C-alpha cells in the first residue's frame, strides 16, 4: 500500500491510459482492480485542473484510494472520494437549501431508530393500528420490518412523497408512508435512503446544479460497481445528463453481495454499457492469490478464475473436527505453529498475528475460539461493522441519547428513550438543561451536564470526558472498564473527525459518525476475527474459515428460503475464499452443542 512506483501489467496499463470515455472494467478478484482504479485517477489528474469523483461503497475503500494517492499535491482538493451517501451529504450540505432545508437535516442512520419511527407511523395509521395492537410482539416486529422495507423500496425508486399515491393503489399503504415521512421531518431528520433521493431530486429539479457538479469533475470512477442499486445508478445518470462520458466503472459481478438494498450487477453490466455506450474491458489476471486458494475458489465459481498466471503455490485444506471445541483448538494450534515457524517462501516478511484472519458466517461462531485465544494469550480483535459507535455501557448510551437531543432538540424519538432509560417517563424534556437540573446528583446527571456544557464546535469535548473519566466512581469493575472503553472509543472517533476539518461542529461530527467517516482506521493489533460481510475488500495472507457446517454457512434461513438468498450465500463463500492470499484453512465441527442438546452437523453443501 505504499505509494511507491507501481509496476503495471500491459493489460492494466491499457486500462489506466485508456481513452477518456465510458469504460466498464470487468475485473475478477485479485486482478488488482483497486490499483488500476487509483492509477487511472493519478493519470487523469495529471491531465486536468478539475476534480475527480471517486465513488465507493465503503468509507474504507474510499480511504484506501486516497491513501494510495497521498503523494499527489493538494490531493484533498483534487479528488472527492467517498461513498454515494457521503457524496450526497456533501451536495446537500452545500445546495440543500434549494430543496427548502435551511440547515442540513439530521440523519437517522440506525435501523433500530427507524423501526421505532415506523412503529409510531403504524400506530398513527388507523387501518393498521388496530391490527397492530392485537398481534404479539414478534408479529409486531415483523410488521415493522415489512413497513420499513416498503418505505425503503419507495425511496430507492426515487419516488417523491407527492407521487407515492401514483405508484400504489392501496391508500393505507400510502398513508403509512406519508405518516412515517411526517414523523421524520417533524424531527428535522432524514434517513439514509433520503440522502440519495433528495440529491437526485436536486439534480433533476435544478439542472444547473447538476451542471455545476458535472463541470467540476473531469472524470467519475466507481469502485465495486457491482453493488450499485437503482437509486445510485439513476443519480449518476442525473449527474451525467447524457453529456458526461468520462466514467469508469470497475466491478466484479461475482462479488455482488449487497442484494438486501436492491443492488444488482445489472446496472454496471447492462444499463451502464448500454446507456453510456461503454467499452467493456476484462481484467482477469490474478496477482493476489496462491494457486491453492484459486483452485479452491474455482470449484465454487468454475467460470471465474484464471489459475495459470499465479506464482505462489499456497495451501488449501479442509478439516472436519469433532466439535466446536476441537475446531477452536485446532485453529489455535495451527496459528501458534505458524507464528513459531515465522517464515515461509510463499509469504513476504515474518508471519505475525496481523497477517492472520479467522472468518465465519456470523459472529457467534467465534465463541469457542475467543475462549481458547483468551486461555492461550493470543491477542485478537473483532473487526467492527463500520458506522456509528455502538456504546456498551448504560452511562454512555445515555450520553448518546442526550447528545442527539442536544444537536436536534426536535428529536422526540430519542427524548422518549432517554426518559424511559432514567425511569422518568412522566417528566418533561422540553429543555435538556432544565431537565438535568431537576435530577438528583448522580453519574447520570454528570453525563447530562457534560452534554449541556459541550461547545458547539466540540472544543471542550475531549477535556470534559477526560475529567469525567478521572472522577468516575463505579464499584463494578467490569462496568467501569466498559464505560472507559466507550469513552476512549468516542474520543478516537472525535480525533479522526477533528483532524479532518477546520470547521468543527458537533452536528457535523454526529453526521460524520453516522456515515462511518470517523471510524478509526488505525492498524489493530493481533489476529483479526471477522464475519464474511465485514471483510469485504480486505485480504490476509493466512485465512481460517471456520464453522463451515451446513445451515451455518449457508445460513439456515437462506436454505429455507432458497432462491436468490442461497445464490447470495454462494457468492458470500466465494468472497470468503478470496480473502486469503496464500493459505486457506476451512474447518467444520461434526457436532454442535446446542442449549437443548448435541446436534450432528453435515459439511456445507457448497463444499460437497
Amino acid at each position, binding site marked *: 500500500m505504499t505509494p511507491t512506483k507501481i509496476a503495471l501489467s500491459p493489460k492494466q496499463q491499457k486500462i489506466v491510459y485508456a481513452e477518456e470515455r465510458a469504460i466498464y472494467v470487468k475485473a475478477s478478484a485479485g486482478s488488482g482492480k483497486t490499483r488500476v482504479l487509483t492509477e487511472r485517477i493519478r493519470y487523469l489528474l495529471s491531465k486536468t485542473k478539475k476534480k475527480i469523483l471517486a465513488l465507493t461503497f465503503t468509507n474504507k475503500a474510499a480511504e484506501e484510494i486516497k491513501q494510495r494517492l497521498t503523494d499527489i499535491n493538494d490531493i484533498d482538493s483534487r479528488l472527492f472520494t467517498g461513498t454515494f451517501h457521503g457524496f450526497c451529504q456533501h451536495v446537500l450540505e452545500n445546495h440543500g*437549501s434549494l430543496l427548502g432545508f435551511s440547515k442540513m437535516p439530521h440523519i437517522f442512520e440506525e435501523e433500530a431508530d427507524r423501526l421505532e419511527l415506523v412503529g409510531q407511523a403504524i400506530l398513527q395509521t388507523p387501518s393498521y393500528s388496530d391490527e397492530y395492537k392485537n398481534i404479539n410482539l414478534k408479529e409486531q416486529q415483523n410488521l415493522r420490518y415489512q413497513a420499513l422495507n416498503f418505505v425503503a423500496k419507495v425511496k430507492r425508486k426515487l419516488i417523491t412523497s407527492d407521487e407515492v399515491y401514483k405508484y400504489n393503489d392501496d391508500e393505507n399503504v400510502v398513508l403509512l408512508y406519508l405518516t412515517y415521512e411526517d414523523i421524520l421531518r417533524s424531527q428535522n431528520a432524514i434517513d439514509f435512503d433520503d440522502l440519495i433521493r433528495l440529491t437526485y431530486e436536486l439534480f433533476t429539479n435544478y439542472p444547473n446544479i447538476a451542471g455545476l457538479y458535472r463541470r467540476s469533475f473531469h472524470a467519475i470512477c466507481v469502485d465495486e460497481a457491482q453493488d450499485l442499486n437503482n437509486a445510485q445508478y439513476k443519480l449518476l445518470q442525473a449527474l451525467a445528463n447524457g453529456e458526461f462520458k468520462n466514467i469508469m466503472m470497475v466491478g466484479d459481478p461475482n462479488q455482488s453481495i449487497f442484494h438486501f438494498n436492491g443492488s444488482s450487477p445489472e446496472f454496471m453490466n447492462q444499463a451502464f454499457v448500454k446507456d453510456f455506450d461503454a467499452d467493456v474491458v476484462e481484467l482477469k489476471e490474478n496477482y493476489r492469490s496462491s494457486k491453492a486458494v484459486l483452485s479452491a475458489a474455482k470449484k465454487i465459481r468454475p467460470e471465474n478464475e484464471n489459475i495459470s498466471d499465479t506464482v505462489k503455490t499456497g495451501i488449501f485444506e479442509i478439516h472436519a473436527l469433532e466439535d466446536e471445541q476441537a475446531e477452536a483448538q485446532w485453529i489455535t494450534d495451527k496459528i501458534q505453529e505458524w507464528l513459531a515457524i515465522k517464515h515461509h517462501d510463499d509469504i513476504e516478511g515474518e508471519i505475525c498475528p496481523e497477517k492472520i484472519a479467522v472468518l465465519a458466517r456470523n459472529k457467534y461462531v467465534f465463541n469457542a475460539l475467543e475462549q481458547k485465544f483468551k486461555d492461550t494469550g493470543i491477542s485478537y480483535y473483532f473487526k467492527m461493522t463500520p458506522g456509528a459507535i455502538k456504546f456498551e455501557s448504560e452511562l454512555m448510551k445515555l450520553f448518546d441519547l442526550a447528545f442527539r437531543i442536544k444537536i436536534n432538540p426536535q428529536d422526540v424519538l430519542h427524548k422518549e428513550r432517554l426518559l424511559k432509560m432514567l425511569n422518568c417517563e412522566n417528566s418533561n424534556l422540553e429543555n435538556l438543561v432544565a431537565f438535568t437540573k431537576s435530577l438528583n446528583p448522580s453519574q447520570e446527571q454528570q453525563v447530562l451536564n457534560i452534554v449541556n456544557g459541550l461547545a458547539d464546535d466540540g472544543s471542550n469535548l475531549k477535556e470534559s470526558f477526560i475529567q469525567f473519566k478521572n472522577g468516575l466512581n463505579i464499584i463494578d469493575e467490569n462496568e467501569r472498564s466498559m464505560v472507559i472503553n466507550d469513552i476512549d472509543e468516542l474520543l478516537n472517533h472525535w480525533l479522526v473527525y477533528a483532524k479532518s476539518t477546520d470547521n468543527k461542529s458537533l452536528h457535523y461530527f454526529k453526521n460524520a459518525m453516522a456515515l462511518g467517516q470517523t471510524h478509526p482506521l488505525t492498524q489493530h493489533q493481533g489476529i483479526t476475527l471477522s464475519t464474511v460481510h465485514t471483510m469485504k475488500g480486505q485480504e490476509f495472507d493466512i485465512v481460517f474459515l471456520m464453522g463451515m457446517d451446513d445451515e451455518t454457512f449457508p445460513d439456515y434461513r437462506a436454505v429455507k428460503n432458497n432462491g436468490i438468498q442461497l445464490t447470495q450465500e454462494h457468492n458470500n463463500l466465494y468472497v470468503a475464499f478470496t480473502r486469503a492470499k496464500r493459505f486457506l484453512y476451512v474447518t467444520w465441527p461434526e457436532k454442535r452443542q446446542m442449549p437443548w442438546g448435541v446436534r450432528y452437523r453435515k459439511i456445507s453443501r457448497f463444499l460437497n
Partner: protein
Amino acid sequence: MDILIKTVRVAGFRGLQNIEVELEETTVLTGMNNSGKTSFLKALQIALGNRQFLSPDDFYIGKHQSQNNKIIIDTLIVPKDQNGKINEAFSEKWEILFTTDRIRADQLGTSIVPLRTTVIFDPIKANFKTQQFILQSWPKFNGTANGFWYESGEGKSLAFPFFDEIPFFYIDAQRDILEDIKLKNSYLGKMLAKIEYSDLAVKEIEDQIKALNDTAVNSSDVLSTIKTTLKELDTAMDSSSDGVDITPFTKKLRDLSKGLSIYYSDQENSFSMEYHGMGTRSWSSLLTLKSFITLLSVNASKNSDAAFFPILAIEEPEAHLHPNAQKKLYGQIASIPGQKIISTHSPYIAAAAELRQIRNFYKSDMVNCGKIATEQLTNEDIRKINRQVINTRGEIFFSKLLVFFEGETEEQALPIFFEIHFGKTSVELGVDFVGVGGHGNYLPFLRFAEWLNIPWIIFSDNDQKGKIKKSVENAVNKLYQSDSEKDQLTNNVLFLEDESDFEKYLIDSGFVAEIESSFEKLHSSDYLAEHIKKKDGAKKDRIETAKTCNSCKQNIYEDVLRDYKGDEGFKMALYDCMTSQKAQFGPLIAEVIVNSGKPLPTKIIELFEKIASLLNNTETRS
C-alpha cells in the same frame, strides 16, 4: 468570461447601520461629505482585501443602541460575460477556483457566490476575529423569516483566499507619485522590482553606461582629479583590484530603478515630479496603478486558465485636479481591467459616468443608497436627465436639499433671501436652488431627486388659469405609487397665489416701490416713465377668439394691446419690464428688498420654513 460583484451589504460598520449597494462594472459613489462613501469602500476592503486597518472605533455606534459588536458584510458575486451581462454559470476557470463548495444557486438555478464576512472584536484579547462564510442562499434584504438579511443563518464557514485571483486595491485620497517611488510596497515599487532585461540588453546598456561614465569623468577636471588622487589607494591596499571607478551614472543596471525619477514636460520646460503640484503627482500615482494592474492582467491573460479579476476602490480621484483633467479621469479609470468603485465629490466625474452607474449616498436617520432606475426610463428620458440635470447642474449630486422652480428670477433672488433668513448661505447648508426652465420640465429633476434619495421642494408659479398647477401636479403624480406617498409628495409642493408667477407675486406683495427703485438703479430714474410712454398701446399679444374664419374654418385671433393706464396699467408695465430682464433684475430686486428692512414676502417665508423643517428632519435624525 468574468465575474462581477453585484451587490454589497454592510451592517454595523462605522456610520453604516444597514445598507445595500448594487454595483456595476464601474460604479460612481456620490453624496455629501460624511455620507458613508469611504466607509463603504473600507467595508469592501474588509471583505476582499487587507484588514489591518480595523480598530474598535470601526464598529457602528447606533443612536438607540449601545455599540454593535459585529460587523457583517455580504458580497454577492455573479458570473458575467464579455459584454457585462449576467450569465447563468461561472466560466470554467472560475468554477475550478471557487469549487462547488462556494458556488450556490438562486431559485432560478443561476450560479452565485454569496460570501459573508464577519468581524468580531474580542475586548479581552484586544484583537479582531474575522470569519468568512458561504451562505446557503442570498437572503432578501428585508423579509427573511428572521428579519433583515444579516439575521439569516451564516452557513458554512469557508475561507475566501483569492487574493491573487481577485486582488483588491484601495487607492486613498492621499496618494503621491513621489511617495510611490520611495516605497517598495507601492504599486510602482512592486513593478520596478520586477523589471527584467535579457542578458544581451543588460550588457548593451551597461556598456553604454560605462562609456557615459568615462565621458563624464574625462570631461570634468574635478572628477578626473578625484579619480587620479584616489588611485593612490591601490598602493596602500594589498590587493590587485581593478582600481577606483567614479560613476556619476549608476554602474549596475539593477540599481537603475533606485534613482528613478519621472519628468513631466510641456512644450517648453521639463520638470521633475518634485516641481509639479499635488494634482499631477496624485494623477500620476493613479496612472501607475493602472499600468500595474494592466501588467498583471496581461500576465494573467497569457494563461487562459488563470482566473484574474481585480477590484479597485478609488477614493476621490479628482483630488487637486483642475476640471478638464477631472473630465478625463473617468474614462481613464473605466478602462482599467476589473471592477471599479469610485467615490467622488466631482460633478465632472459624476457627469462623465453613465446614469446607471451612479450611486448616491444620503444620510438621513441612517445612510441609504439611491440609484437611478434607468430600466424604467426611455432613451429620451435618459437624454433629458443628462441634458437638463447632469450637464448643467452636476453639483446637485452632492445636495442635502433641492428647491426646484421655473425661472431665472427665483434662481437669482432666492439665495439672497435665504442668507438673510437663515444667517448662512445656502451653499453652507447644502441647499441648492435649481431653475428647471419651464413648468413642463420638472419630471426629470423630480425623478432624479427621488431615486437618489435627496429631499426636494417645488416652489411653483400658479398663473395661466390653473394650467401650470395642473402640469406640476401631473409631474408629481408620476412619482408615487401609494396614497401615503402621495400625501408626502404633494406636501413638498408650494404654489404661489392664484394667477401669480414670481414677478407678479412681488408686485402684489407690496414691493412696487422696491421694484421701481431697482429699475432706477439698473437703468435711470426716468426709465419706467419712458418705457410706459413708448410701449403704451403697442401690440402685446394675439389671443384666440371663439369666432372662426368662414373660408379656412380656423379660429380668428385678435390683437391685444398694452394698456399701461392707471394703477393696474402701471403694475402691468412693471411686470412686463421684470419678465423681459430677469437676469439683471433678479439679484437687484432681492438686494433692494433685503435693504428695505421690510419683512420678506410671506410665500418666501413659508418656503424657508418648509426648508428648515426638512433640514431639521435630517439634521436631528442623523
